[in-house]
């Protein structure tokens, strides 16, 4: 690629993220998340893979505010959450599920050429993983459902 598509190679070997991984697990009853970004770089003619890592600063029970991890397309989300941080002040899981769906829908609206399709959901707690009832693709065998919920700061913030 370096020889045949130097422009593409330069684009992706300049520290640009080419892979993101979100890992979620439980250890001793405490949730652990790791959001990793991998990028390519060139050092002394050799390709090197670097990474950045983000983890929650308040895992476990008793954290006052939810923490959100955005992976992939997130420009519209970052803008939204910057303007309306109050949407993440409730710790109610049902509410947060709607917010998560709404967040993805926000990116679908902002970048429909890149993001789209049915929105799959899952919840993970100390009892394992619970697939969303409306999932179309992930393994719960339910029928399709198009998510339409958007995070609404005026209504959802008042709810909690």
């Amino acid at each position, binding site marked *: 690629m370096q020889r*045949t598509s130097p422009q593409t190679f330069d684009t992706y070997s300049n520290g640009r993220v080419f*892979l993101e*991984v979100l890992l979620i697990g*439980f250890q001793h009853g405490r949730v652990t998340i790791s959001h990793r970004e991998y990028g390519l770089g060139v050092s002394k003619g050799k*390709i090197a893979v670097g990474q950045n890592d983000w983890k929650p600063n308040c895992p476990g029970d008793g954290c006052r505010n939810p923490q*959100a991890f955005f992976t992939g397309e997130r420009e519209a989300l970052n803008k939204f959450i910057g303007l309306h941080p109050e949407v993440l002040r409730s710790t109610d899981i049902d509410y947060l599920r709607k917010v998560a769906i709404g967040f993805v829908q926000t990116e679908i609206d902002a970048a429909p050429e890149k993001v789209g399709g049915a929105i*799959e959901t899952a919840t993970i*707690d100390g009892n394992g993983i619970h697939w969303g009832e409306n999932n179309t693709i992930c393994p719960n065998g339910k029928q399709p459902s198009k998510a339409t919920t958007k995070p609404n700061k005026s209504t959802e913030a008042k709810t909690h």
Partner: protein
Amino acid sequence: MCRYIWRHVSPWRVYSQAAVLIFLLFPSDGYSTSIVAILSNNTVVIAADSREIISGIPGANPISGCKLSVVNNFAWSTSGLFRVFSRDAGTGAAKTIYDMNDFIGGIAKETRYSTSEDRTLRQFDKQRYYLGGEGIAENVSSDIRHLL
């Protein structure tokens, strides 16, 4: 079982309960996605769009587009790499069935030695089948289904 894995994979940290791995490959080449995880009170809520196929990874259906994969045992190290473990049906021994070292190494190798004129990143993305191992993924999925 957990103690057995600990003994064999230390200093890797093993997470033996339900876990979700979400892979996003080459987010800027047109294959994109948006995935959100919200953590609150020791619970995580995840939402993901289903625009593109994520395949060649353990637990993922190669043609489904499901971006959420569940494994029963995985571990990651302080160096930032992770492994997915299964158990050998015959011996009960823990075995690595997927190694992020190989995954990342495969990407780097493919990048370094690619010579095809038309190997764009979109085509490169399809190399996921090689990187993750399409056949391997099927076997791994079977292993994971057995575990779940």
